[in-house]
């Protein structure tokens, strides 16, 4: 007895889930694979080039910045890879090879690392990178090409969103929108592929349905009520399945770092994204509103979180609206 052993002493708990940040990021990458596959099928080799350049430059900037600032390496957590893929996914397939590099510089260095790296940035890096590119290279960023199985004139091609923005239903069939035989950004074309990825994320509990459902639901309800096309239902479906709505609602708005952490807050965030998306699509000068809607809502996260704390265990839930009515009722009684 009494032999000396080297035992570790630390606070409980003494076990942890195997699912760390890297596993979660890997799950996101797996979920993005179907959409990537669809883009290759419909756009050919270009998506591969754009995505590869985007991912490589994102990882390189992340690595380089951390090295330069003498901070611990974080490229191993795969979050830069996810940013790279997501940024490539919201670029047109026609962009020149050097464009993603500039986007990555802005996304990783300015938006992510200058604020402290993963978990500290308040804007979605991929979307901020895209917004930066759109502001700087408007022509390159709106040069759309049709999907390879579409029978249209490539020179004057317009995406379904452009026609929706003009207040008319797109001539593209709903089936084409679902499978992705349609022009648009690299990752946004195939609704089926994106939904498949979303299902994987929900199954693996990487995301909850709160943000995607409230986001898409809000867009669906508003476009159905304030329909600009006939039949109204078709107008709603085209609005849901065209453009970057699914990509944004499933992969961008659910970005951990730039969305609320409270369950109630996530629903408010999703509804806000949906409202802004429709507002921009209806009244903005640019046909797509998803990315700006998410970026604007990103700025409200801190405020939403602060005001949606879960009910403290063992206390009555706060019911501000009911309380207000109760108070008004009392006033009325007093007056009588």
């Amino acid at each position, binding site marked *: 007895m009494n032999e000396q*052993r080297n035992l570790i002493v630390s606070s409980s708990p003494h076990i942890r889930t195997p699912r760390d940040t890297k596993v979660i990021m890997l799950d996101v990458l797996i979920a993005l694979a179907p959409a990537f596959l669809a883009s290759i099928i419909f756009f050919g080799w270009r998506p591969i080039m754009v995505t590869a350049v985007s991912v490589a430059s994102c990882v390189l900037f992340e690595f380089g910045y951390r090295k330069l600032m003498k901070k611990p390496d974080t490229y191993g957590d795969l*979050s830069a890879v996810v940013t790279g893929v997501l940024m490539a996914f919201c670029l047109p397939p026609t962009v020149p090879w050097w464009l993603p590099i500039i986007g990555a510089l802005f996304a990783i260095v300015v938006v992510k690392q200058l604020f402290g790296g993963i978990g500290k940035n308040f804007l979605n890096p991929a979307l901020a990178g895209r917004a930066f590119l759109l502001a700087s290279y408007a022509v390159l960023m709106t040069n759309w090409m049709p999907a390879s199985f579409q029978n249209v004139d490539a020179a004057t091609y317009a995406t379904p969103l452009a026609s929706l923005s003009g207040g008319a239903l797109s001539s593209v069939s709903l089936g084409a929108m679902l499978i992705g035989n349609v022009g648009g950004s690299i990752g946004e074309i195939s609704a089926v592929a994106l939904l498949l990825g979303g299902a994987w994320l929900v199954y693996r509990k990487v995301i909850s349905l709160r943000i995607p459902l409230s986001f898409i639901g809000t867009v669906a309800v508003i476009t159905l009520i304030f329909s600009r096309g006939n039949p109204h239902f078709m107008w709603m479906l085209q609005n849901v399945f065209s453009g970057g709505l699914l990509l944004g609602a499933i992969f961008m708005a659910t970005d*951990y770092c730039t969305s609320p952490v409270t369950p109630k807050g996530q629903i408010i965030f999703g509804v806000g994204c949906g409202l802004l998306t429709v507002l921009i699509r209806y009244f903005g000068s640019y046909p797509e509103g998803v990315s700006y809607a998410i970026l604007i809502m990103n700025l409200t996260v801190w405020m939403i979180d602060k005001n949606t704390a879960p009910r403290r265990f063992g206390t009555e839930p706060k019911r501000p609206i009911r309380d207000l009515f109760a108070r008004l009722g009392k006033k009325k009684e007093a007056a009588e």
Partner: protein
Amino acid sequence: MLFKHHGGVHPNDMKAPANQTAISTIPQPPQVVIPMSQHIGAPCTPLVAVGDEVKLGQKIGEAKAPVSAPVHASVSGKGNMVQAVIIENDFKDTPADTVVPAADEDLFDPERIADIIREAGIVGMGGATFPTAFKITSGWGKVDTVIINGAECEPYITSDHRTMLEKPEELLKGIQLIMRACKVEKAYFGIELNKKFAIDLLNFHGAKEMGIEIVPLKCQYPQGAEKTLIQTITGREVPPGGLPAQVGCAVFNTFTSYSVYRAAYEGLPAIERVVTVSGSAIETPKNVKVRVGTPMEWVFEQTGGFKKEPWKVIMGGPMMGLAQYDLSVPCGKGTASLLAFAGDEDRTAANPTCIRCGQCISACPMNLQPIYMYMYEEKGDIEMMQKLNLMDCVECGACTYICPGRLHLTHAFKTGKAKIQAYNAALKAKEEAEKAKEEKKEEK
């Protein structure tokens, strides 16, 4: 209907290695060390002098305060006192005169049952070690529901499970005594569904006829935390900083109930308990009867020893147990398991980083926001820590378990609580000093 609570995590229960092995007995150690404080509350005063002969079950530490529990000799032999009573074992197990079953009529009087429990030194055997007799007597007039905690939600631990399987009748009789002592007609026995056979067995032995309703619970951690269990079974929520009696509930652990049976029907005080020995460094995971005061090292040696060099040794479960640095520490009344891990089950990261995934919020059974509590704890912002109700934290470890960024959340909250307490104490002292000053001025 399946009962579940809000939040929680689902760790692999790791019960398979030990839950098939029957409770066995290990040889007694040559020496036991019995601390004078094995419970929450005032420590005992020793009743034996150095060199005294002590007998099995003899009371060796007297509890004078109301919130306390006496301690008893777990072997017979020669007493030797430091801050604890050390007994050199004579391996005779000579029982003390007090080790006699209680009279039958005593078992129907709540006051007498509470006395038996108090004298037997029974405390909450799940690990919280709150004196059971005080829980019963302080609840009179308030408690309408007795809940028996058979969740055993911590991974690895199977000692309660084996007790249910091997001593179902005795266990139910013990619960009956507790119900009588608490003056209630009905008890709920919450058992997680990974102990399905135990549920069937207890029902077979007539739990229902005794007024004991077995409640099957979903396997989730921390199902067996007191407040969580009350909420799951009755829907009542213990208010912040409050006690279960405030919502009419009293919760007793499975092994506590069995100990009550032994105290009443066999006269044996709380000197022995079942301990699960498990973990990746253990040769043969087992459930063994261990006398209180047996050094951990002895238990490990007698159950087959280590198959790998232990990296971490834990007294209690992997979620809330205490890591030990010295294996000569004695097992106490609340030691449900001894675990030895060979590798880094903590999965610690070199640079813990929050990615704001919010899983800690979904996991917290107390509806807290660990992510923000951690942020303000790091900053040392006492005001915000209090605003976020950090003191409500039950330290269950669910948030830390689930955290993909590998943050040391529970650790931060433990230190945060200490910071808040120190701050409030200083504030109070300052206020009192000022008050005293003003009073002096007035006198002048």
